[in-house]
């Protein structure tokens, strides 16, 4: 009942309203002369220094859903859920140089989205449209999932009623506020709020990882309790270590997720908003601090096992909502006021990525659908306006997903999203290095990768939950005819087929001398930096006052 959680509710509401006020004030923070430009509303003036970028991108990549779902996965399956740690380690060295090239070429040409780059590089509006649609489709369920994060917290506080409307009213209010200040302040709102969000999360987690083991008898007994739980279950795949059959899945999932992360439009938005190449490179060294945080948060799942947490019932009768594990752990182990702070951290943690994702999706729509197909001569002010409205529509869509559909649907879609966004790798990531691929071949590769990825995901069943299709991303290799119980991450297989098709067709189309368009970029574009005379103007403001980053 909500009365038992009154302290938590008051602290949660207070902090939530505080950041909402910050969100509205953000429009005046580092204020531009003219907000009616997509560079200002959608990229914060491309002027963020090291610290702001660190908070912004960190708050963007490590979402509330991650912080709730990863420990839930560890709680349920054990070691396999820890893939999030290698995933967020290998990603930064991998994109260290790639993102700098993307930043440079985008600044020279004023690109706002990855599809802008593809349009120019491969001279193909169709390929750009496919990239844009892929990005929007992959981002939408991700936004909806942020709501799942907030909902887990609200459910634990008992403020969600039984009827459909009462259950969702708090979320609708939260998102309406979020939509309003994102509309007004653009990317500056999440950038400012990210400071509060991340500070809260760091404090909460540092306290938790020292205090909880002390209360629960030390780390050794926490892992032993988890080990005992997994040994007692009949499921073969769980345990505090990997077994012979899920190691390939673990590694390919970590690697494939890392490949996918910076193809997501919201990640690219955060990167393009930075001031120069040095900011990006230093952030690649500094962002792993969040990976440490994520690793410790993941272990909250084991602490919940040791503390004997029982997850709340899910939407369907007989099911449990694993996402409530972490909120319940805090509720049970901490004084009310501290649990309230922790809940606020998760709740606000959902707002930052949700705002950035909706901005990224809106930018894709504006630049690659509206300007390309609906109104070719749109002025920068019109672009900014369309983007603002599109960001509202995106958020209404995300709320509708959660209110009217089973949340499981959004989780399935997000799983699919990771696989489909990977299919933009040949055009976007490899395109930054080479124009060897033929534009037609890239389109064909995209189609092949998408088709195969969907088919494979459809085949994945989970006998424990009784789901027959889309029950995960671990594809059993025996379905390809191999005599083995091993599984592999769907995305990796799909993108390899995508690449193979693109490469083969490139050879064919080149041999047949099919027209291949004109490359709109020059090799020099990929090294331009702040201060370069040909860099798009608009980067110099009062940005020099920003403090330097930690690394």
């Amino acid at each position, binding site marked *: 009942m909500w009365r038992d959680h009154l302290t938590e509710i008051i602290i949660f509401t207070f902090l939530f309203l505080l950041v909402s006020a910050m969100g509205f004030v953000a429009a005046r923070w580092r204020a531009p002369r003219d907000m009616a430009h997509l560079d200002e509303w959608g990229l914060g003036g491309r002027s963020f220094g090291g610290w702001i970028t660190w908070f912004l991108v960190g708050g963007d990549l490590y979402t509330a859903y991650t912080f709730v779902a990863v420990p839930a996965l560890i709680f349920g399956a054990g070691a396999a859920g820890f893939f999030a740690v290698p995933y967020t380690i290998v990603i930064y060295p991998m994109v260290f*140089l790639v993102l700098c090239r993307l930043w440079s070429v985008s600044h020279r040409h004023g690109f706002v989205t990855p599809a802008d780059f593809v349009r120019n590089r491969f001279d193909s509006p169709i390929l750009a449209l496919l990239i844009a649609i892929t990005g929007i489709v992959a981002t939408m369920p991700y936004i909806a999932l942020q709501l799942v994060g907030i909902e887990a917290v609200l459910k634990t506080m008992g403020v969600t009623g039984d009827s459909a409307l009462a259950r969702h009213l708090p979320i609708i209010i939260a998102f309406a506020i979020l939509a309003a200040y994102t509309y007004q302040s653009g990317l500056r709102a999440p950038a400012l709020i990210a400071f509060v969000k991340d500070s809260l999360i760091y404090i909460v987690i540092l306290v938790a990882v020292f205090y909880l083991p002390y209360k629960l008898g030390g780390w050794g007994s926490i*892992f032993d309790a988890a080990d005992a739980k997994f040994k007692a279950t009949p499921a073969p795949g769980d345990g505090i*270590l990997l077994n012979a059959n899920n190691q390939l899945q673990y590694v390919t999932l970590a690697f494939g997720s890392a490949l996918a992360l910076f193809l997501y439009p919201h990640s690219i938005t955060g990167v393009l908003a930075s001031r120069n190449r040095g900011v990006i490179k230093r952030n690649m060294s500094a962002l792993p601090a969040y990976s440490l945080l994520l*690793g410790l948060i993941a272990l909250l799942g084991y602490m919940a096992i040791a503390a004997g947490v029982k997850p709340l019932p899910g939407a369907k009768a007989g099911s449990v909502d694993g996402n409530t594990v972490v909120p319940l752990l805090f509720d049970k182990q901490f004084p009310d006021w501290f649990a309230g702070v922790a809940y606020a951290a998760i709740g606000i943690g959902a707002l930052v990525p949700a705002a950035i994702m909706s901005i990224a999706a809106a930018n894709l729509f504006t630049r690659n659908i509206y300007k390309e197909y609906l109104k070719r001569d749109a002025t920068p002010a019109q672009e900014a306006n369309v983007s603002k409205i599109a960001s509202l529509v995106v958020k209404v869509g995300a709320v509708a997903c959660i209110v009217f559909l089973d949340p499981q649907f959004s989780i399935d879609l997000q799983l699919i999203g990771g696989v489909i966004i990977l299919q933009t790798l040949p055009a976007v990531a490899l395109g930054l290095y080479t124009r060897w691929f033929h534009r037609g071949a890239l389109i064909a590769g995209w189609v092949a990768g998408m088709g195969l990825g969907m088919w494979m995901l459809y085949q994945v069943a989970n006998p424990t939950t009784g789901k027959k299709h889309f029950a995960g991303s671990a594809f059993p290799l025996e379905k390809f005819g191999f005599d083995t119980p091993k599984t592999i991450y769907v995305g990796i297989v799909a993108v390899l087929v995508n690449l193979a098709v693109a490469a083969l067709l490139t050879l064919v189309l080149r041999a047949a001398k099919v027209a291949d368009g004109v490359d709109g970029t020059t090799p020099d574009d990929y090294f331009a930096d702040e201060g370069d005379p040909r860099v798009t103007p608009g980067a110099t403001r009062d940005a020099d006052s920003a403090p330097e980053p930690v690394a």
Partner: protein
Amino acid sequence: MAAPEPEAPTTARSRAKDHSPWNWLLFIPIVVPLIPAFFNADSPRLFGFPRFYWLQLAWIILGVATTTLVYQMTKKRGGDR
């Protein structure tokens, strides 16, 4: 998002500002954390953490050290703040 090839195959020839042998070091923190044989065991435990957990968390330091080293060694003198 592919491996960070220091040789940009077609574009780097004119002004290879990204080209440096130091960049090859970036492969270490990409490959090492993806080899389960290193970390998939319980012993030795450290502060109660099985090796699986403490070693993977330790790879974070490997990643930070490598990217910081490469950044420091490849940044342009005076510029590239």
